[in-house]
Each structure stands twice: as C-alpha cells, then as structure tokens.
C-alpha cells in the first residue's frame, strides 16, 4: 500500500453537493419533459382502451375520457364490428395475403440473395442494382400502371392477383438485407458443405437457410405487417367483398359508422391489429435476436 498524501480535510464538500444538486434538478426537468411526452403518447391508447368498453349510448353521453361503467358492452361491440365490417372474410383475406405474400417474398429473396452472394454469373452487380432499385421509388408510382395492367388481365378483385402483387413488391427490401447478411456468413462453411457432398440447393437449404432464420423472421414480420396494413393497393385493386382485405373493410366501416358509432369502429380497429401483435409475440425470440450475426 502506498500512503496517500491527499488530505481529506481540504475537500470542498459544499462544492461537491452543489454539483450533485445541479445534476438532480437537471434530472427532474428531464423527467418532467419525458412524462409529458409519454402522456401525449399514451392518451390515444387510453381513449381506445376505454371506448371499446362503452356502449354506444354511454359513449355519446359521458365525457369521452371517463372510465366505463361496466365492461360487458365490449362483447356487443365486438359482435357488431365483426358483422358490420365483414371482418371474418376480411381477416381471412388479409391473413392469406400477409402469409403467402410475405412468406413467398422472403423465400424468393433468400434464393436471390444466395445467388447474389454465392454463385458467379455475369452482370451480378447490375442485377442487384435492378432489384435494389425496387426499394428506392415510392410504391405509389406503380399504382396506375398496375391498375390498368390488372384490369386488362382481369386480375382485379382476385385473390391470386393480390398475392402476386404483394409477393412482388415485398421482394426487394429483403434481398437488400439478406444479401448483406449472407455475405457475412463464412464462405468456408459452404465450402465445407460442398466437400461434405452437398449440391448447391442442399447448401442453401441445409446450411444457409438455417443460419438466416433471425433476419428472415424479422423481415417476414415487417413485410407481413406492411401487407396487413396496406390500404391503398387493396382499395385500388379490389372492391368486391370476397377479395377485400381487412383494412379495406375497416375503411368502409369507418366511412359509414365513424360518426354514429365510433366505439364500434374503434373496437374494429383494435381487433384488426391483434393478428400483427400475435405474430410479433410469436416471432419475438427471432426478432430480438434481430440481425445479430451468429457464426463460427
């Protein structure tokens, strides 16, 4: 032990206390600001949460921010929302579009990324830029040509048409992510697999894909949610009920009932958001792993 030459008696305790105080007032101020922001953020949720427990009459009479008197009206609201917005068929359609469109897009993107990172072919850079350009332009740009084309092909109001469209627009972004991710997976791993006897597709299936679950799950969730929430393309490309997506149905409901029964409309929107939330919880583990590269 070396003896310290510092004399504790010379320490300015007051100055240190003042510095600490200053830090505390700063923290309090910061907390106040965050609290206000949080309140602003939470209020709509609160509004939504209480409104769905109110009957139409209760909603109309009392203060909109008052607590509901009982929770039973929620069942009535759900039933009404479900039937008025035709949520059954809408939900099935949206589920179909989200699962098939998102799933197919991610799978095709994974195939493309494998090719772009593992197979030598001429014009590789060009093909990648071509796919990549799909993420640059705003999607709305495709709206009119797409509508006209679909009209000509008789593919409006068709489930197949919608799935095709969603698959196509959901490919470029995952290619961007997966290409980078796969490029980071060690080449020696697939060389080892090649020596172990794998064909090109077997390497993709048995070695590369299993190491890409985390980003693929994340991408799937993002694309699924986008498809689920898409309104504009659904509205332009479908009008009939049998191919209409849930959001499209909600839009119609909103148009006709927002003024008379807003509590029902709100219940419907909440119901409509449940599948995305459920999917998130389901894929949470992969999602949290996120884009963390795990390799040897």
């Amino acid at each position, binding site marked *: 032990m070396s003896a310290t030459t510092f004399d504790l008696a010379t320490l300015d305790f007051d100055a240190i206390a003042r510095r600490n105080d200053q830090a505390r007032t700063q923290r309090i101020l910061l907390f106040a600001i965050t609290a206000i922001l949080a309140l602003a953020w939470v209020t709509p949720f609160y509004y939504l949460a209480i409104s769905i427990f109110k009957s139409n009459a209760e909603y109309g009479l009392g203060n909109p921010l008052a607590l509901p008197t009982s929770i039973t009206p929620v069942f009535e609201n759900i039933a009404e929302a479900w039937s008025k917005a035709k949520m059954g068929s809408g939900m099935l359609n949206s589920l179909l579009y989200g699962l098939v469109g998102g799933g197919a897009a991610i799978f095709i993107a994974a195939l493309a990324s494998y090719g772009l990172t593992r197979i030598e072919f001429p014009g590789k850079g060009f093909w990648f830029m071509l796919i990549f350009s799909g993420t640059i332009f705003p999607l709305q740009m495709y709206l009119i040509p797409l509508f006209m084309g679909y009209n000509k092909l008789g593919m409006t109001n068709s489930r197949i048409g919608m799935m095709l469209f969603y698959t196509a627009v959901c490919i470029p972004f995952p290619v961007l992510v997966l290409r980078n991710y796969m490029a980071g997976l*060690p080449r*020696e*791993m697939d*060389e*080892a*697999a*090649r*020596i*172990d*006897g*794998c064909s090109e597709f*077997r390497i993709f299936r*048995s*070695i590369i894909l*299993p*190491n890409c679950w985390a980003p693929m799950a994340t991408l799937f969730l993002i694309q699924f949610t986008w498809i689920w929430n898409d309104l504009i393309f659904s509205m332009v490309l479908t009008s009939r009920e049998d191919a209409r997506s849930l959001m499209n149905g909600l839009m119609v409901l909103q148009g006709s009932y927002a003024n008379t029964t807003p509590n029902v409309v709100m219940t419907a929107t909440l119901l409509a958001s449940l599948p995305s939330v459920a999917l998130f919880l389901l894929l949470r583990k992969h999602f949290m792993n996120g884009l963390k590269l*795990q*390799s*040897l």
Partner: protein
Amino acid sequence: MSNVTLRELVKVYGRQVAVKGIDLEIEAGSFVAFVGPSGCGKSTTLRMIAGLESVSHGEIRIGGRRVNDVASRDRGIAMVFQSYALYPHMTVYENMAFALKVAKVPREEIDRRVRHAADILRLTDYLDRRTTALSGGQRQRVAMGRAIIREPQVFLFDEPLSNLDAQLRSAMRVEIKRLHQRLGTTAIYVTHDQIEAMTMADKIVIMRDGLIEQAGAPLDVFERPATQFVGQFIGSPAMNILAGRIARTAEGQPAIAILNGPVIAVDGAAFDLPGEGRPVSLGIRSEDIVPEGHGMPPERAHRFEARVNLTESLGNETLIFAEFGGADVTSRMQRPRPVADGETLAFLLNQERVHLFDADTGRSLRR
C-alpha cells in the same frame, strides 16, 4: 489412402498468376506440409486439390485418377479449414454426421461412425452441444472429426492450428500426428509455421511466389537448403547471411572474405566454388555461432570478438544479437549467463556448418 500427383499445376486469377506451375509427387500415406510466406499460393494449391478452385492448367491425380473435373465430394478428400467452418446451427454430433447424412448412409451406421470418431477425438461428452458452446481446441477437434468420419483417401488441412494459443497448438500438433499414424491416411498440411512443418511432416514443400522452392524431408531441407530463401525460411531464428567474396586463406585454402570482415576458410570439397573474387552469400545458423565457453567448441572454428547489441533471454538459452562483418548476426548462448548490452564477447563460428549461396540467384553452391 491414395497418392497425389500434381503436374504443371497453374492457377490464374484474371491476369494474375497465383500458382505458377507445380510438379509434386505425394506418396500414399505420407504427411506433406506446404510452407511459405503469406500469399505464396499454398492455400490456392490446396484448394485446387480440394476442388474448391478450378485448375487453370496442368493436372491433379488422386490415386492415379485425374480429378481436374471431378466434384469435390467425389474426390475422396476431406478438409479442415483454418476457421474450422463448423455448422453453427448443428450440434457436434450433427456436424460430424452431416456428410454421411447427405450420402444417405443408414442411421445405425452413422451413429456407429460418429461415436467411434468422437471416441478417438475425446468428444463423447460434447456430442449434444452446439458448436458455439465449445472452446477453440474443442472446435478444432470437431472439425477433425468431421473430416475423419468420411474415411477419405486424402486429408487436406489449411492452417488448422493458427487460431489456437501456443500451448494448445503444440498439443494439437501431437494429436494430429498421432491421428495420422493411427489412420495412415495421406495428409496435405498447409501452414506458415515452419515448426509445425518440421515436426509433423515426412516431407516439406517450401513455396515461394507461386513456385516450389524445395521439397524434401524436414532434416534434409534444414541441413541442405537448396536456396538462400529456404535456408532463411526454415529454422528459427532465421539463418544469418553475410555478404562476401571467394578468396583464399594465407595457407592457400578456399575461403570467403566477408565484406568488412575476416576471411573464413570453407571446405572446398563440399562446394562448387566460382572463381576468386566472385560475390557469394555465406549462411550460418545462430546455433553455429557459439559464444566461447557456452556449449561444445566446434572442431574447426573461426574465432572473433564482437560487441553485443541486444539480447533476448528465453530462459534455457539466450539469443545474442552482435555486430559482425558489417551485419547483425544472431548467436545462441546455451546455459546462458547474464550478458549486458554493449559487452564484447568472443564467438566461435563453426566453419563446417557454413552454407554458401550464389549472390545473384540465391542457389546453394553445395555439391
């Protein structure tokens, strides 16, 4: 086990030539080490043998069969990579079983072979672990297990130990050697560590700049380096090189006049000496410059005194860097005593252990 024959092997990347024509015969069951400085084409050669790189020109034969256009998986080879290249989403067991699974070997047979390999490599307790949960040495053994399970004709190793710490490396060195003795499979081993090459191989191939500089048994390469490059590359610390000219001693014996240094007599019968006055490089290993009083004095020695510039103490010996003939030379002091920088010591240079190289081509002048 199979023999491997390389004939006029060339690899070009665009206009750049990475391997410039290699001829080599690797006997069945032998352990051959490729050494050489970074970028000399060792890995490229190995990867051509593995079928991971195409052959630009020349021929590879494994067990007499030309394999230039045969897929990796059908060449009867197995490879251990520097990074191990284990499959991170599989357990140790699955990693080892994978090749057999792809080959549709029956399940019981796979199980028997995996357990046998695990037994050899002391991996039995780890079979159910993910490879991410293993230490470096254990991963290394899994990589070996994955290779031996296929019962290949030829093992290929690309710097398999360079990611391990020194202690583990020497342990694995022994383990690989023992494995080779046990299995008898032909092994081709790439390394830039000449100690690995010296200790493990039956035959060392020293490469430089895409060409084979010398191939031979380890001791042979050490004792009779074909070029100055080999002399300096093999052996640690590197061989001392002194510039000089052909001369004669006062008695008329063949000798080398070191530039700015003394005249050192050499054995005229051992070398093809060019005419007097021609420049040569004299090579002498550090263990052949003995500080007087430390170790056996050589029979025919050239004694000189020199100032010590620097010392490196390794415990059992000390490396002494001293000035001699206008150059820095390294000497090995056995049973060391403390030496101060700047001290003047007497050294004995063993004249019988001198190597001579052509000053221009670097070729050895030994008969």
